[in-house]
């Protein structure tokens, strides 16, 4: 039953086209590489050919002497370590003492043009001592001869170990009726956004530094620049032009951004660094290669008694978001089901490979796959329908998980019901002919992280400024980062909704740290919830000022003034009205332009034990997806013709954007489950191009039936929750479980490529275990 009231909104819930759409379809949207500054130099990076080596000495004299070269930088010039998490600063702008992976930045030059810069790089001479390389995280669990970082746990390459135990898992398993164990293996995957990273920096004689960069998180970049370059933040100006996709890959402050700024300071000239496509792959920060080992215990009725989970996570050369990753691979198993006993041991291990980091549905994807496959297996063992098993275990609304996550709204059971009905599940599951099948996968994700990465000084998670002057245009400033997901449109939509004006009046300004109040950026699917609430707060303040103006003109008290479309009217007689412009001009008479500030901060929720903050969120999204597959049993090639995607993002604010996020998530999830893989030979990345790292083509995309069933969230803006990352998760297990229904083979090694499918089919045949009569 829906608790959502019928829509009383003019814009919210409708399909609102992206505000910057006309600029993007005409090529007029300005991305970082479209900006050029007078006198600009080309910055280029020298990348290490050694996976692990001590940099004994370097000779840059020939490079420096080359005409046209303005600066050559090596690591010791700016050695201050940085990293996205304050507790794991283990990166430097340029490698200082060691190269830690093939692709590590070991020197940089600024020159008049690309060719000169390349020539200069070729003249730099390093003497190095090779060190042992570590490609397999299992080799880094014990003390090693040469730890990749000094901060590895007890002389090993373990970057982070998390051990948690809630309830009594052993006792739960002892009394369990049904048990299952699944061991999942997941290749690393990467974001594959279309715009390669790019940065421009310019230091000016007034002592200021301006940095334009393709970043998802301008504020963390701002902080890192300040820390490494030793400049106060107020002397640095960070500008975010349009960003051509991020998916997590542009959320760390990245070394090339700092190098670019350093080169600009050294040369006194603007410097641009473009990361070419191959180097985008080496920069990586994609989803971690992961092995997980999960055990689930159920009682005779199919109630979950316990999860026992281990995860081994291949971190690559740096920490990046890794401490969060290590927690998430455990704690994001705490929904969408009630789990009364939970034990987790997660270890993230440095390897001498490109760093992994945050990628869409960070930390919640691989663990979810193994759990959903395990539940599918348990349902089969018990002879119950996979939907029924999940429905029986759904987390109730307004509950607390065993690790003290606060659950408020959940429409998970509505997701299940919708996916089951619309997919025709009951007439398909185990009933389709051999080679065809349907599978169910579910999802759960944070709607923003409750704890900001930087918690000093104490400040709101998001702040939005609005200003309206006599022209009637509303300028909106915020450091939230639109990277294509439609957050600028959402901001404009909320302002227009609250003030009753046309959305064309709202002009969302480009992120510019000089004028944009801080929002912590686009990661952890936080923007709709947090920036949305901040925007609403700001717009309500502006509305109060406008209504006061209208009240003064109409001669009625402000409490009796209602908002109409581009007008304000008296509640008791709608014909007694003034236009938005008249109300605005009245309100401005004494004070000039109207300004308003709105902010949002998360409440304190969750436990007080070590690591309790990880995974706490002001709200969570829920999902239930059914995928249908068709397998060519002679080749193992398979297609996914349809995905039914039932999703709980609370109230839908912009239907166009929510659909876009779900369709894009299905694409990205299918990529990971069907074929994407960062392929390594030892520590060498073998497929650093979009030709060899294949993302799904249009022909591989299923029809996506989107079912938005969420009830209003009590704290989300207008009842909304996230829809940017959670929609990816359920895609993978839905396909994996559909393959089982099709051919009777469990796949726990991702990606599930046709050769693996064929091998599974052949093995089952050889064992004389026919499936669905074949």
């Amino acid at each position, binding site marked *: 039953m829906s608790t959502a009231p019928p829509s009383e909104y003019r814009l919210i819930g409708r399909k609102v086209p*992206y505000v910057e759409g006309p600029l993007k379809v005409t090529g007029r949207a300005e991305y970082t590489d479209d900006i050029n500054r007078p006198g600009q130099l080309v910055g280029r990076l020298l990348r290490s050919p050694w996976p692990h080596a001590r940099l004994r000495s370097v000779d840059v004299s020939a490079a420096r002497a080359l005409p046209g070269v303005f600066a050559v930088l090596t690591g010791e010039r700016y050695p201050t370590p940085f990293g996205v998490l304050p507790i794991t600063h283990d990166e430097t702008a340029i490698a200082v003492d060691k190269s830690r992976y093939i692709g590590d930045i070991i020197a940089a030059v600024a020159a008049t043009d690309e060719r000169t810069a390349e020539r200069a790089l070729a003249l730099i001479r390093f003497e190095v001592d090779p060190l042992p390389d570590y490609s397999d995280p299992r080799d880094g669990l014990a003390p090693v001869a040469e730890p990749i970082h000094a901060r590895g746990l007890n002389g090993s390459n373990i970057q982070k170990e998390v051990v948690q135990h809630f309830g009594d898992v052993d006792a739960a398993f002892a009394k369990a009726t049904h048990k299952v164990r699944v061991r999942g293996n997941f290749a690393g995957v990467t974001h594959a956004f279309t715009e390669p990273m790019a940065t421009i920096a310019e230091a000016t004689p007034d002592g200021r530094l301006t940095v334009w960069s393709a970043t998802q998180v301008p504020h963390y970049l701002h902080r890192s620049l300040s820390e490494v370059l030793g400049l106060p933040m107020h002397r640095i100006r960070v500008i975010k032009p349009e960003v051509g996709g991020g998916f997590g890959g542009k959320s760390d402050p990245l070394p090339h951004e700092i190098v670019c700024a350093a080169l600009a300071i050294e040369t006194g000239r603007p410097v641009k660094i473009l990361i070419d*496509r191959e180097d985008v792959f080496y920069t990586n920060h994609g989803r971690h290669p992961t092995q997980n080992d999960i055990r689930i215990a159920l009682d005779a009725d199919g109630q979950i008694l316990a999860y026992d989970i281990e995860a081994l996570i291949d971190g690559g050369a740096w920490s990046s978001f890794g401490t969060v990753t290590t927690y998430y691979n455990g704690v994001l198993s705490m929904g969408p089901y009630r789990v009364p006993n939970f034990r987790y041991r997660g270890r993230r291990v440095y390897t001498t490979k490109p760093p992994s980091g945050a990628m869409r549905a960070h930390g919640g994807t691989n663990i979810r796959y193994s759990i959903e496959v395990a539940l599918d297996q348990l349902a089969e063992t018990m002879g119950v329908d996979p939907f029924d098993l999940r429905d029986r275990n759904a987390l109730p609304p307004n509950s607390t998980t065993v690790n003290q996550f606060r659950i408020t709204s959940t429409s998970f059971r509505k997701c299940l019901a919708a996916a089951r009905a619309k997919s025709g599940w009951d007439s398909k599951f185990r009933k389709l002919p051999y080679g065809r099948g349907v599978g169910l996968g579910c999802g759960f994700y944070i709607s923003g992280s409750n704890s900001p990465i930087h918690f000093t000084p104490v400040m709101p998670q998001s702040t939005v400024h609005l200003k309206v002057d006599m022209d009637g245009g509303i300028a909106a400033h915020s450091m939230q980062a639109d990277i*294509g997901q439609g957050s600028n449109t959402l901001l404009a939509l909320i302002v227009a909704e609250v003030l009753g004006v046309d959305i064309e009046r709202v002009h969302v300004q480009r992120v510019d740290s000089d004028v944009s109040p801080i929002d912590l950026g686009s990661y952890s699917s936080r923007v709709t919830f947090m920036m949305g609430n901040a925007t609403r707060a700001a717009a309500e303040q502006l509305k109060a000022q406008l209504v006061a103006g209208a009240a003064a003109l109409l001669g009625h008290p402000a409490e009796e003034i209602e908002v109409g479309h581009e007008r304000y009217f008296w509640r008791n007689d709608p014909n007694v009205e003034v236009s938005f412009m008249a109300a605005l001009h009245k309100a401005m008479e004494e004070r000039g332009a109207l300004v308003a500030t709105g902010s949002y901060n998360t409440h304190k929720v969750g436990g007080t034990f070590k690591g309790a903050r990880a995974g706490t969120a002001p709200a969570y999204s829920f999902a239930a997806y059914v995928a249908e597959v068709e397998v060519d049993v002679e080749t193992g090639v398979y297609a996914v013709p349809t995905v039914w995607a039932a999703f709980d993002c609370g109230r839908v604010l912009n239907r166009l954007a929510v659909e876009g996020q779900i369709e894009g998530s299905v*694409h990205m999830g299918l990529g990971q489950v069907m074929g994407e893989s960062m392929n390594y030979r030892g520590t060498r990345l073998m497929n650093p191009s979009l030709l060899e790292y294949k993302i799904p083509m249009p022909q591989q995309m299923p029809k996506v039936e989107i079912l938005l069933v969420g009830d209003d969230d009590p704290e989300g803006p207008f009842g909304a929750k996230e829809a940017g990352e959670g929609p990816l998760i359920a895609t993978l297990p839905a396909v994996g479980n559909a393959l089982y229904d099709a051919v009777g083979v469990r796949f726990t090694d991702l990606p599930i490529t046709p050769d693996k499918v064929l091998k599974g089919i052949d093995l089952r045949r050889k064992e004389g275990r026919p499936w669905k009569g074949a």
Partner: protein
Amino acid sequence: MPSPGPLRFQLNGQPAEAPSEPSRILLDLLRDDLHLTGTKRGCDLGTCGCCAVLVDGRPTLSCLTLARLVEGRSVTTIEGVSPPQGLSPVQRAFVEVGATQCGFCTPGFIVTATALLRDQPHPDRQEIMRAIAGNLCRCTGYLKIIEAIQLAAERGA
């Protein structure tokens, strides 16, 4: 070798001239020399389609095209398929259905779709997918892009 004369071609309907350099790539010429930044650099390897332009009306990857090869030919970029005011029917459809997200691949899709609808005003879904097979998009899953091209076709773009 004597240096060849300047490169002459038609660019977005106007005669254009550029210094000739045998190894100059068309994408670099457009973006860096002629400041037509609507054409995007996504891979420099012909794998993503962000740099697509029309050469004599045919979708062409400008990152794999030597500038010399357009001598005497007609090049149309995203700037050239955009009307002076407002949007073309294809562009309007992309905006309406939300076929852009990050927008970085969009110019490549727009020029490709424009050429498709000129040659085949009523393509079926398969024909649309074939036409855009050289363009990667990581945001949309292509579904709204296909929908936009269908909408533009229905309206007789």
